Each structure stands twice: as C-alpha cells, then as structure tokens.
C-alpha cells in the first residue's frame, strides 16, 4: 500500500475511534447522570421550574384535569409547611407504607376534580405511623381529610413540611414546581405553558453541563466500556508508529533532500489532518443525530464540540509523536548507509 493510502487509512481509523469515543462517553455520562439524586425520586425526564414573575394561576388553568392523567406535578411553597402534589398516574402510590383498606387510601381522580381538601401527613414516630388515628392529624384549611401517613424516609418527605396536599385544593401554584412524565411531548407542552405564565426552567436532567467527576467511570460496565475504548488510543499510536516505520524510506529521502523535521511533517501529514478533521466532524454529527433518536440525550452540544476537539488534538498529537519517534531513530542511526 502506498504511503498516501496508509495515511488516509490512519485518518479513517481516527474517525471510527471518534464515533466509538462519543458512544462510550455518552454511555458513561448517561449512567452517571441517571445515578445522580433526583429530587423526590422522580424519573430522569423531570423538569424543575422556578417562578420569576407574579403568577396566580392554579393547576387546573395549566393542565386539563380530565385528560392529563400521565403527569406528576409537585409544587413547593416557601414559608408554608406543606407541598402540593398532583399525581394521577400513581407514581408515589407505594409511598404509603401501611395498606389498610377502609382507613387509608391514595388520591383519586375525584379528589382532583372536586378540589377536596385531602392530604398526607408526616408521622413523626413509628407508633403513630402504624397505629395512630390518622383523622386526628388534620389541620384546618390545609388538610381537612388525612388519607395516609408517610414517615421521614419517604421519597415525598422534605425537611420542614408536615403535609402533602391535593394540588387542586390549593389556590395557586408554588414558587418551585417539578413536573415529570413518561410522555415527553406532554411534558414539553406543560413546560411551555408554565414558561408562558412566568416560570423559568431551572433544572433539567438532560443537557446539563458535564463535570469532570461525571466522566470517571464507576461501575463494572462503565469501566469496561470506557477501557475498551481507551485501549484503542494506544493501539492507534502504535498503528501510526508502524505506519511511519513501514514508510521510513520516504522520511529518509525527505531528510536527505535537506528538509527539517517540522517541514517534512507538514508535508507528509497534510492529507491526514484534512481527512481526520473533516471525517471526525462528520462522524460526530452522524452519531449525535443517531443517538438523539435512539436514547435520551445527555450530552449537550458544547460537550460534544469539546469531545471532538479533544479527540482531534489527541490523535493529531499521537500521529506527530510517532513521527518524531521514527525521525529520532533515523538521526541516531545516521543516514550514511543510504547514501551508497
């Protein structure tokens, strides 16, 4: 194979490694982010919104209580001892630790439609949780009918609250709202609705900026995927080295004709860099587009650009390094033998 072809093959391998790096990074980061704590144990689709301007809307003005039955909404109020919950998809159903028919139950659709002042109280002791008369734990105006109790280990518990109340019984939504659903389209619709009412998206699990500690793999699968990909880089370095070794004659002839090390490198690597930079960019775009439809997208556009630049720099450096190593060996051995 001629040098030119080998050079292009090197660049193509680099493009392939770029796409595998992208996949493995997405995987590792996705798993890291998925393992992170989410408020109230919501799913990774959750969105946190914060009120910016005055909004006196109640929940039924934002959503359609009859049809939007696959969303969960939690709203927090500052200076109040309760949070409000709208959960017709029974996401928190299992937070009720005592299943006692006839005494305890979960929020029903009727509660939401009729704005009943139902709520969940926080039990402070175990005897209260299991045996206490739950109807004594009501508070006028907030939770007039207590339907079940939770303890402080529950997902719904936050410090400083005593009640989780039916959201439709409260007049307006709070300062902080969490929405969550399996149906991302519906989620977006509600998000737009809330944004137009004066809320601002404060936190989304997707598209968060990646921190260094997220990149470090932790579980076995992450390490394996990460290491399989990482091992490709040294193999790639050896490939470049062997490629230059195979074409040492070209290096020597260039040397004999009086080229300096840097000039020879520029001359020999022009095609490689062109193919590598353009090919890697195309591969990144292809992967980005492909992954977007395949799985939830965790890696934002800037992280992808950083990844791409990093990859091009690393492969370029490895290419240059293997060239320099081969050049050095030439210098030591001298060029005498080839003058003959």
């Amino acid at each position: 194979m001629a040098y030119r072809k080998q050079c292009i093959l090197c660049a193509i391998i680099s493009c392939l490694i770029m796409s595998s790096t992208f996949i493995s990074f997405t995987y590792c980061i996705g798993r890291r982010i998925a393992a992170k704590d989410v408020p109230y144990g919501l799913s990774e689709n959750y969105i946190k919104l914060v009120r910016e301007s005055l909004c006196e809307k109640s929940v039924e003005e934002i959503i359609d209580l009859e049809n939007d039955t696959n969303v969960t909404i939690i709203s927090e109020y500052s200076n109040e001892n309760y949070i409000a919950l709208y959960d017709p998809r029974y996401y928190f159903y299992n937070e009720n630790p005592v299943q006692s028919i006839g005494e305890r139950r979960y929020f029903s659709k009727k509660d939401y439609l009729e704005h009943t002042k139902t709520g969940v109280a926080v039990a402070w002791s175990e005897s209260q949780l299991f045996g206490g008369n739950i109807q004594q734990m009501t508070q006028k105006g907030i939770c007039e009918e207590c339907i079940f109790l939770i303890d402080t280990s529950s997902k719904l518990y936050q410090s400083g609250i005593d009640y989780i109340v039916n959201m439709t019984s409260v007049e307006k939504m709070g300062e902080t709202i969490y929405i969550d659903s399996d149906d991302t389209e519906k989620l977006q619709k509600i998000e737009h609705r809330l944004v137009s009412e004066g809320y601002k998206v404060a936190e989304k699990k997707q598209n968060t900026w990646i921190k260094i500690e997220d990149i470090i793999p932790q579980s076995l699968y992450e390490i394996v995927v990460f290491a399989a990909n990482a091992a490709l880089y040294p193999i790639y370095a050896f490939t470049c080295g062997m490629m230059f070794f195979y074409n040492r004659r070209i290096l020597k002839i260039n040397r004999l004709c009086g080229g300096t090390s840097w000039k020879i490198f520029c001359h020999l690597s022009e095609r490689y860099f062109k193919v590598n930079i353009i090919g890697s960019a195309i591969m990144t775009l292809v992967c980005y587009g492909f992954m977007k439809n395949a799985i939830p997208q965790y890696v934002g556009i800037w992280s992808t650009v950083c990844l791409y630049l990093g990859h091009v720099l690393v492969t370029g450096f490895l290419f240059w390094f293997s060239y320099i190593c081969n050049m050095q060996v030439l210098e030591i051995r001298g060029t005498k033998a080839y003058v003959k």
Partner: protein
Amino acid sequence: MLNDIWLGIKDIWNEKWLALCYILFFLNMMFIVVSTTDSLYREKMEIEQQKAQDYKKFETYVIGMQPEQPEEFLKNLSDIYQKNAFSYCHVQLQAKTIGALDTYIVFGDVPKKLFEKKLEKNVSILVGSGLAQIREITVNGKKYKVDSVIKGDTEFTTLDNATEFTDNKVFIIISEPQILEWVSPENYDVMYQLVKNTQILSKDKDRETQFLRNVNTGFLDVKKEKPKDTEEIAFILKFIDPFLVIILLSCMLCTTLILNGMIKKRIREFSLHLIHGALLTDIFIRVVTFFVVILLISTGIGIFLGIIQLEELWFYALLETGIILIFAGILTPKLKRQNYSLNLRDGGVI
C-alpha cells in the same frame, strides 16, 4: 512448530507495550460481547414467555375508603369470574388442633394447568401434603370433605411474585362463584385482594372491559399491567452493538497497519529462516502465535479478576477463534506478497 511458537512468544516480549494494549482491549471487548449477548438472549426469552401467557393481570390502586355499593360490587365480580377469569384471596382459617391454616380461596374458572385435577364439583377442597390428616373442613357453617391431597411439595408463585410451597396450605376452589355467599360485604380487605389478584384470559376482551368498568367506581382504580418494556434490548441493539462493531472494525484496520510494520521489522529474520529451510507456514504460525497468546492472556486475566465466569468460557473460545481467523485472513496475503530475497542486501531495512 514448537520453535515457531517460542519465537512468537519472544515477539510478544519484544513488543510488550503493544501486547499490553491489545490485552486491555480484548479483555474489555470480549466481556462486552459476552455480557450483551447473554442479556439480549435472556430478555428475548422473557418477552417470549410473557407473550405466551394467556392470562392478563392488573395493577390495583386503593383510592377510596370503601365501595359505595358493596353488594353490587361483589355481584359484578361474581359475574366476571363465571368464565375465563379467576381470582383468589388469602385468609387464615382456624383449625382446632393445628391452629391457623393458610388458606387460599380461589374463585372462578381456574385454568387446568394450575391444579392437575380439574374438579367437577362446584366447591372442591385440596390440601397440601403436610396436611394430609385433615378430612373435613367447615366453611360458612357447611362441612366439606377434602377432595384430594396435592402430592409432593409443589412450588408456586403468588401474584406478589413471592414463592410459596403447597405443603401446608389449603385451597378451596369455587368454580361458579356467587361471592356474596362467601364474603361478607363489609370485608373490604378481601374485596381488594380479589380485585388485585384477578386474572382474565387475554382473548376475552369483553370481559376485560367489563371488569375495568365495574371495578373503577371510586373505591379501587385498576389499570392494565404494562407489558415488559423492551428498553434494554433497544439499548443493546442501538447503542452497544454499533459500539462493538466500530471498535472491532477500528481494531482490525489498526492491525493491518501494525502487521505491515511488524513484518517489515522482522523481514531479514524471516528471509534468513526461509533460506535455511523454513516454510511460509512456520512464519505464519509465528505471527499468529503472537495474537493467540495475547488472547489467551486476556482470558486468563479475566478469569483471575473474576470478570469471566467459567460457564461462559466456551463462548469466549468461540469468539477468540473468530478473531484469530480474521487476523489470519489479514496476515496471509501480506506474507505471500513479500519478496524476501530483496531484503538480504547489505544496508538492512529501509
């Protein structure tokens, strides 16, 4: 032959850093291949199993304190269990000498495979092998003779996914139930259990809609149990498999270039060997040994670290054979195309 292998191992020592990278790569790559194939196979099996199940289950949520018309509620349930559907509840019966008896009261059209003997009678009673001394059981003031003893200690899974054994349990099977005769309308707990444990034949869609309509009256909310999600399969097919294909492809392409260099490095040695009577096969074996030993070492490290289970070893062997065959395919034309006599001039390799 032994000589060739020895030379191959020496090559590994000479190229130790390269070999180390290869070991790291193959160790991880093979683990990914085996574990994803394994989980893909298992998930597929599970989904097949789920499809094969004839009976549909439901998820039940308690949203009311009590049914508005309990008699009506139970009557509706009785209608549903007449055919193609059944349910059960778990109660404790009191026995004089033994104490509490774990009893399952099964209402409805029970599938044949659940109880070997399909019993003709309206009310039939089965006891586990540990309770064979029981002859009669009194329920609701009526005496019933025990119809048969379940031989052996059969394992069965309750709907809560707990595994139980039949040996100390009593099963009362009521095939065409009027639940009101058996359950008092104030016993909401049993009602909840019955609804929760209901299974309806998948084919009988009318019965299913009837059930959902009758039950969702404010006391309980019933939803169809979601089918097992195929997320993991989709993840493997769309995410890990392309990843594997890409890293394998790039590894193969790297290897072609690396082999070029490795042969070039040793071309004088090879030429001398050929002059002294070695065959091309010997050289071929020498280079292949390089990769075989690398793969063996990575498998060994995997076993040592506990990543590779011994039962999966055959799969690894299969995979390694495939990789070696691909490498041999890359190597053969390279060795054949060389002109060895040219490389013996003074001046060495250029």
